[in-house]
C-alpha cells in the first residue's frame, strides 16, 4: 500500500512545472528547430489550461512537439504541418483561430469598432463645426461694425 502511495506521489511530482522542450527533442538543424518553435507557440496543449505545446511539459504536448518536428524533418511546409495537426485534433488546437464564418465577429470586432467610432466622431465633429461657425454678419451689421471700429 505504501509503495503504491509513493508511486502515486512520484507520478504527481512528475506533473509539476518542469519545462517543455527537452534537449533530446531539439532538431540538429537550427533553422528547422526555429520553425518548429514558432509553430509550437501557436498550438494549444489540449490537456493544459492555457498553454501552448511549447510551454507545456504534459505528455501530450511532448508528443505533439515531436510530431511537428517529424513532419518538418520530412520536408512539410509550416502550413502543411499545422493543417495536419488540425486535421487530427480539430481547430481547438489553434491558439490563433482561422478567419472563417464562425470567427468573423472575433476578427472583425477591432476594425468594426474603430470604423464605427471614427464615423461617430466625424459626424459629431461636422455638427460641431457647423455650430461653431454660426451665421455670418448681415450687410447692416457689417456697416455698424465698420463704424464702431473707426477711430
Amino acid at each position: 500500500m505504501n509503495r503504491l502511495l509513493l508511486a502515486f506521489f512520484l507520478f504527481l511530482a512528475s506533473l509539476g512545472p518542469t519545462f517543455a522542450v527537452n534537449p533530446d527533442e531539439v532538431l540538429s538543424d537550427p533553422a528547422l528547430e526555429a520553425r518548429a518553435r514558432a509553430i509550437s507557440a501557436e498550438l494549444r496543449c489540449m490537456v493544459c489550461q492555457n498553454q501552448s505545446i511549447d510551454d507545456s511539459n504534459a505528455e501530450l504536448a511532448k508528443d505533439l512537439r515531436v510530431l511537428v518536428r517529424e513532419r518538418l524533418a520530412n520536408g512539410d511546409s509550416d502550413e502543411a504541418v499545422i493543417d495536419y495537426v488540425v486535421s487530427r485534433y480539430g481547430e481547438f488546437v489553434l491558439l490563433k483561430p482561422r478567419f472563417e464564418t464562425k470567427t468573423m465577429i472575433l476578427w472583425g470586432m477591432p476594425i468594426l469598432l474603430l470604423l464605427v467610432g471614427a464615423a461617430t466622431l466625424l459626424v459629431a465633429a461636422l455638427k460641431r463645426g457647423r455650430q461653431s461657425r454660426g451665421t455670418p454678419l448681415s450687410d447692416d451689421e457689417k456697416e455698424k461694425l465698420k463704424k464702431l471700429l473707426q477711430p
Partner: protein
Amino acid sequence: MIIELGHYALVLALATAFVQAALPILGARLNDRALMELASSAAIACFLLVAFSFAVLTFAYVTSDFSVRNVWENSHSLKPLIYKISGVWGNHEGSMLLWLLILVFFSALVATFGRNLPETLKANVLAVQAWIAVAFTLFILLTSNPFARLIPAPGEGKDLNPILQDVGLAIHPPLLYLGYVGFSVCFSFAIAALIEGRIDAAWARWVRPWTLAAWTFLTAGISMGSYWAYYELGWGGWWFWDPVENASFMPWLAGTALLHSALVMEKREALKIWTVLLAIMTFSLSLLGTFLVRSGVLTSVHAFATDPTRGIFILAILVFFIGGAFSLFAYRASRLKAGGIFAPVSKEGALVFNNLILTTAAATVLTGTLYPLVLEALTGDKISVGPPFFNMTFGLLMLPLLFAVPFGPLLAWKRGDLMGVAQRLFAAVAVGLVVGCVYYYAMNGGPILALFGIALGVYLIAGSVTDLALRSGLGKVAGNVAWRRFSGLPRSAFGTALAHIGLGVTLIGIVAVTAFETETVVEMKPGMTVDAGGYTLRFDGMRNGSGPNYSEESGHFTISSGGVVVTDIWSSKRLYQARRMPTTEAGIRTFGLSQLYVSLGDQISEGGIVVRIWWKPMILCIWGGTLLMMAGGFVSLSDRRLRVGAPTRAKRPKTIPVGAAE
C-alpha cells in the same frame, strides 16, 4: 465564539448596508438633511463591521483554527506567519471578503473626505456604493461563508497551494482589488449624476482623483502579478494573455481611457456623456472580471455547470448592476447637456483619439476572452483564442496610439497646430531613431522591427521630456528663469510626463526581450559550462535541503565573464509536503537591467539534469516602466487641484463653477 462574532459582524454589516442603500437616496429626494447625513455614519459603521469580520478570519488563520472549514482547507500549522496571513485571501471565500472590505473602505473614504461634496451628490454616491456592498455581502453570506465550522475539528490543515506561498500573494491581490474595486467609486459617481440628471466640471474634479488612485493601484497590481508569474512559474514568461490576466487588464484599459476623458471633462466641460458611460463600463469590466475569475466559468463551461450557485449569483449581480446602469444611462443621458466645442485637431481631439483606441483595445480583449465560451455555448464548436491572436490585434491597435502619445500634451486646447507640434517633436523622433540604430548595431542586428520598436520607446520618453522643456521655456529664456518655471509647473504636468515616460520604458523592455532574448536548453552534468548572454555558467552540482513545509533540490551555478567569476546562482525544485506538489524556484541574477534566468528540469541520467537558461536583455524595463507610471499617478494625485477636499486656491481661473465644490 470569536468566529461566530465575525460571522455576526458580517450580518450586521449587511443590515447597515441596507440602511445606507435606502434612506440617503430618499433623503436626497425629500431634501431631508438628517436622512442624507445618515449615509456617512452608515458607511463608516459598515466599514468597521466588515473590518472586524476580516480581522476575525485573519485571527483564525494566524492561530490555525482548523475548526473553521476555510482555514482547514487552505492553511497548515507549519506555514510561515506571513503566508498564514496572506492565505486569508488565497482562496475563494477569503478573497471575496477582501473584495468587500476594500469596497466598504472606499465608501468610508468618500464619507470621510467628501465633506465638500454637494449634500445630495454625496448621499446618492454612498447609496449606490451600498447597493454594491449589499449584493456582495449577500453573496458571501449565502454562497461563500468563510466562517463555516467543521466538527470535529481536524488536527492539521490541507495547506495552501504552494504556488501561492510567496510574497506575491501578500501584495498582488490587495493591490489589484484596490484598483478593481476603486473604480466602484467612479461608477457610483456616474450613477449618482444620472439619478440627479446633472453633471458639471466640479463632478469631474471629484471623479478624477478616485480614477487616478484606482488606476495607480491597478497598474501596481497588474505589474506585480506579472513579475510574480515571471519568477514563480519558472518558464520565463511575463504575460500570457490568460483569461484571468485579461480580466484585470480590461478594466485597466477602460480606466486609462476614463482618466483621459475625465481630464477633458474637467478642463473643457466636453465629453460629459461619454465620461459617464466610460465610468460605468470600467466598473462593469471589473465586475465581469470578478465573475470570470470567481465563477469557474473560465476553466471550463462544465466546471461552471457542476456548481452553478456561486456563478449564477455573481451573474445575477452582474446583470443587475450592468443592465441597471446602462438602462439608467439610456433613460437619463439625454438630460446631461453637452459642453465645450473643439476642433478635431486639438488636445481634446488627441484625448478622444486615445479613448477610441483604448476602448477598442478593451473590447478586443473582451471579445477574445469570451468568444470561445460564447461560441461553444451557442454552437458547440470549440476554438481557442490565445497569445498569438492577442499579440497581433492588440499590438496593431497600440501602434498608432503610442505614436500619438507625445502629441497630446503638446497640442493646445480647443484648436491645435498639428504641424507646429510635429516640428517640436522632430528632435524626439531623431533621438529615438538614433538610439534605436545604436542599440540595433550593439546587438549585432536582429529583427528590423526591433529597431523601430526601441526607437518608438525612446521617442515616447524624449517626447515627454520635450513637453516639460517647452513648458519651462528652455532655450528661450535664461537658465534660472527656465528652472523657476520648471519647478513651478503643476504636479499634474510631471505626473503626465512620468507616466508617459514609463510607457516608453515598458515598451523598450518588451521589444528588447521579445527580439533579443536567448534560450538554451541543455542536459548538464557537474563541471559542464554553457554560455548565455555573454556570461559563462558552470554547473557545480546538486544539494538537498528543506524548508519549514517543503523539501528541495537546488543546483548551484558559478557565473563568470571573461574567465573571472562574477557571481553565482541557486536554482531549485521544491516539493511541498502537505499537497505533495512540486514547484520550481528559478534562479535569477540581475545585471544592470538584464537578467539571467535559470530553471531546473528533470533528472535524465546519473548526475545529469536538464537546465534551461534564458538571457533576458533589458527585462527590468518592463516593470521599471510600470513603476514610473505608478509614480506618475501618485505625483498627479498630489496636485493641489486634485487633492481630495483641498480648498480651492484664489489663483485658479474662475472658469469652473466653484459653487458645487464648496
